[in-house]
């Protein structure tokens, strides 16, 4: 059942749209390259909760409006201003303030067990916190002109939300090189290193992301959730232990399995002409 509803106004920092199980969020703060200030961070956090809690939404796509920027990261000017308002111990005070309050869920940190797929459609500059957000998504489609980078090292900052997963995002050595040089990488290099899934032409990342999201939506929610959860639960665990986890047939997948079985009898599989799967 197609359902398309958009909320957009000139003042909307995050343009949201529901499209038949797909939740599309477009960052819309182009004058600041979608830096996460002026309420954009809060809008993203609200969108995270909206996606998690709406059982009609299966896959999320995050992108930026236009061609220039996906997201340039934290709004440094705004953070600086806040830090000065907090006084002399500004750096530590900001850290403490963030820690003492609710740790905000975010795509960056893959946390709060958001076991539904999120795709980043990288339409332009994807830097620092913006790159961390993209790397916290499950897949990345990147436009040919776009660049990804973690320049924090040039300013004495950390990129902590990504460094603990460098070894399986791509592989260890490239990850260290990227965070130590702070240089952005091209779209092609991102795919070579495994940091992005596919390069598309300028302007095409959303269309491609929607195609992939539709492929994912052919599967029931229970399948998507089960498999994403299994992946994140088995990483960073010795092999034998990972294999021993969760050996039963997951009960919540049972109904979807039974319903799908009949349709599967006549599935057409690429390169397999004998699609009649009966003895």
């Amino acid at each position: 059942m197609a359902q398309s509803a958009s909320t957009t106004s000139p003042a909307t920092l995050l343009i949201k749209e529901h499209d038949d199980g797909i939740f599309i969020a477009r960052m819309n703060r182009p004058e600041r390259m979608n830096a996460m200030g002026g309420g954009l961070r809060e809008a993203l956090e609200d969108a995270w909760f909206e996606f998690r809690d709406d059982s009609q939404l299966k896959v999320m796509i995050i992108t930026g409006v236009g061609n220039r920027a996906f997201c340039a990261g934290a709004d440094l000017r705004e953070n600086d201003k806040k830090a000065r308002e907090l006084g002399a111990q500004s750096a530590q005070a900001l850290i403490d303030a963030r820690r003492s309050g609710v740790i905000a869920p975010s795509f960056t940190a893959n946390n709060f067990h958001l076991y539904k797929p999120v795709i980043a459609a990288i339409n332009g500059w994807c830097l620092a916190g913006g790159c961390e957000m993209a790397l916290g998504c499950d897949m990345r489609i990147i436009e040919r002109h776009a660049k990804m980078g973690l320049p924090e090292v040039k300013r004495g900052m950390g990129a902590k939300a990504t460094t603990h997963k460098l070894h399986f995002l791509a592989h260890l050595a490239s990850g260290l090189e990227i965070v130590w040089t702070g240089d952005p990488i091209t779209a092609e290099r991102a795919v070579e290193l495994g940091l992005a899934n596919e390069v598309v032409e300028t302007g095409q990342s959303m269309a491609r992301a929607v195609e992939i999201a539709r492929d994912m939506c052919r599967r029931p929610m229970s399948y998507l959730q089960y498999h994403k959860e299994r992946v994140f639960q088995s990483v960073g665990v010795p092999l034998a232990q990972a294999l021993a986890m969760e050996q039963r047939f997951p009960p919540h997948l049972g109904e979807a399995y039974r319903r799908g079985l009949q349709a599967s009898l006549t599935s057409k599989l690429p390169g397999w002409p004998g699609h009649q799967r009966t003895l």
Partner: protein
Amino acid sequence: MAKVTYTRQERIARLHITSPTNGFGPETRCELNQALLQYKADNEAWMAVISAEGPDFAAGPSNPVPGSQRELRECFSLWAGGFVEVWKPTICAIQGQCRGEALALALGCDLRVADETASFTADFTGGPGEPDVLAAWLLNLVGAAKTFEMLWLNPTYGAPEAQRIGLVNRLAVKGDFKPLPPPDGRFPMEVMGTTIPVPAGDAITAAVRFAEELLLYAPVTRNFQKETALRSIGVPFHTAQTLELGPNPYASEDRIEGTRAFVENRRPVWHNR
């Protein structure tokens, strides 16, 4: 006669394996471990370049020559200590053949710079008691499938293929040095390179140059990133996210200096704290 020398040029520690055949016997391994621990203790050194003398990184026997059991145990604990517990960068310069135990050494460094003569071979023979250190690094660098391929089929990769699969970061090529950014003004935004041009195209000069480029940026951040990255291996995903590891760059003086330098349009002066 020392098989490994340790010298420091400003912020760069130079660990150089001098033995003519580059055979990785127990003595060389132990001296190298000592040198790494010396780097760890040397607060003036913020970056290390590890290199070997001669046309090949390792031309000698590539399989570990066993020493006495006690020697092995001591040396091995140093090896783990030297490679895994030094929370500042190590860069390995590789020319010619890099195989077997020498490959394990090279992979224990954080980054690798190879010249066009470099080649990489596992030379794993599965002998009884053979250390699996090479496998431990390969699993984290190229993934399990490629690990078995390298250990069992024993292909030899040239430098470009090694770069493609994740064994090598930069290729040393012949060319003029790429100028470092001017001492004033903000850092330029340039795409991450795949090569390091140096006049002779040799790996050692290129590795030192790479170290100089990296030294432009914040040491506290680098060290924090290394510690976090390495100590998150083998830690369940959600736990790794919440680990507080190493110095906190956000609480460092260098972070304030970094922002201030940006605002004042000048090069930051780092203090590693």
